[in-house]
């Protein structure tokens, strides 16, 4: 770098000059708020009380003795795990499908982008409309085929299954885009060599395709687990966390406690738990990735 900018000092000055705006932005809206959230989580701050005091771990103790919160926490974990598994499977299926050569492949790949690009809130409402008890198309089918009440979003189990399926619908296409790129990176010679050796399709899939895509699957799996844990828009739009709290996940809980009830301290404690899970997952993911990328 000396060669480029003369002295080391000059290079450092230029570095600082260029990097400062982004770092300042992140300090102001990420680093500082994180510290603040951690601090708030140990207070009983409320928007309408001017006085607040340090309460230590009290908020966390309350949270972990609250059956409602434990249900929210466990559903959040179930939600991200089932969603991610299904998205990995469907992502791989769609990618394999779109990797075939057929007429109109370009069009099919383009259509695949639609669920990913449309605003989540719009997708959530579209599905709610499809499931409208009286006039929705899906409700009509459900009552025709199964002869049961079409109000799936009114039952805890129905709402939970619906939420996961809509989430999978929304996100599998992004998974597929990444896997498609991954599939195209697998050298064709590998398959030819395996074919010469007499390996069948199943063997080829399990000995070539899957191992080659494994690092990518781990990365994407981890990324999706973490990222879906922060999923707010879909739950807000599709079920509002209901019926009751059956489909509430952590981000919606933060929103309710913090910005609806203005219990800043309590809501921040939920935020801290969310961040802890994210960090744990991230760490685990990095270790796994090291193991799998050779």
């Amino acid at each position, binding site marked *: 770098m000396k060669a480029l900018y003369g002295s080391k000092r000059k290079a450092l000055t230029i570095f600082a000059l260029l990097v400062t705006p982004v770092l300042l932005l992140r300090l102001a809206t990420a680093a500082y708020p994180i510290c603040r959230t951690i601090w708030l989580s140990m207070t009983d701050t409320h928007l309408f009380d001017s006085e607040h005091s340090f309460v230590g771990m009290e908020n966390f103790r309350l949270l972990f003795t609250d059956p409602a919160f434990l249900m929210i926490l466990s559903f959040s974990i179930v939600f991200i795990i089932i969603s991610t598994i299904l998205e990995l499977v469907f992502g791989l299926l769609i990618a*394999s499908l779109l990797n075939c050569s057929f007429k109109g492949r370009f069009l099919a790949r383009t259509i695949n982008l639609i669920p990913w690009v*449309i605003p989540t809130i719009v997708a959530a409402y579209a599905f709610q409309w499809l499931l409208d008890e009286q006039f929705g198309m899906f409700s009509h089918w459900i009552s025709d085929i199964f002869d049961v009440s079409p109000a799936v979003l009114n039952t805890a189990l129905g709402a939970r299954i619906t939420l996961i399926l809509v989430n999978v619908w929304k996100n599998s296409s992004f998974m597929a885009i990444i896997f498609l790129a991954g599939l195209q990176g697998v050298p064709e010679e590998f398959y030819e060599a395996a074919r010469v050796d007499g390996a069948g399709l199943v063997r080829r899939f399990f000995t070539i395709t899957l191992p080659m895509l494994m690092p990518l699957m781990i990365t994407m799996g981890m990324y999706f687990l973490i990222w879906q844990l922060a999923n707010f828009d879909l739950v807000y739009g599709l079920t509002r966390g209901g019926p009751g709290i059956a489909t509430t996940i952590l981000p919606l809980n933060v929103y309710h406690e*913090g910005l609806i009830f203005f219990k800043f301290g309590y809501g921040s404690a939920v*935020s801290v738990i969310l961040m802890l899970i994210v960090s744990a997952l991230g760490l685990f993911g990095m270790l796994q990735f090291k193991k799998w990328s050779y």
Partner: protein
Amino acid sequence: MELLILVRSSKVKLDNRFLFTKRSLLLYLALAVFVLIVLIPFYWLMKAAVSTPDQLVKIPPIYFPEVGLNNFYELAKQIPLGNYIFNSLIFSTSTAIATVFFSFLAAYAFARIKFRGSALVLWALVVTMALPEIATIIPLYKMLGAVGLLDKLSGLIFVMTSALAPFTVWVFVPFIQQVPESMEEAAVIDGAKLWTILWKIFLPICKPAIVTMLIINFVNAWNNLLYPLAFSVTASSKCLSVAITEVFQAQVPWGKPWHLISALGVIMVIPVIILILSSQKAVVKGLTKGAVK
């Protein structure tokens, strides 16, 4: 799994002679199912947006209604639609430009100026990508309030730009690293200013990545719900995403005003779809480059 195997095999076998073999038939069947599943919600939204309310409440549902634009007029009468569209456009465009501008500067520094600790700074920056937006929403709410940026478009642009910057830097760094250093060496020796180097040499070379990130960041901001929902109070800073949640709150005799919700949904969907589809290749390339390597 079975489907996967079939699909893989058809890749090998499929050519015009075999267009109607059992395998290719299955391939097309799978494709048809896939396309239908992807498009049904989209179609149902479009349909509701262009049909009259009384056609929406027919049982069984009407699949091909008479098409009209009345819902859009009615929507514009009920909410300050033009105002919301304007806000969304300003919010998304400014965010995209600001993010790309600042991220590009930072990415150049990370790619070209290496010293002890610079990788650590980059790593720390990229790691904040994993931070859940919602986890910092309470302090951000208080902070924006304290500096008078609550309920302002500038406040929204500020937090959104910051949220999108790490990913943008992450995409730009390898892109800039691919450019040979000799490109700027000569210019530096000739005494060219940093600004000239960035503007005259790197902007043209990195144009594909820049355009891709402008589009992705625009779409991200356009689709964002949480920040406008949390920080916008009045129509002066509300975006379309908040507007749709408000239209959704309304009640009509037959339940929800699905004709208006759908019309607004279509207004939100059309621009992003046109934008993404017209730049499909570039966007996908930009996205997968980092992930697959």
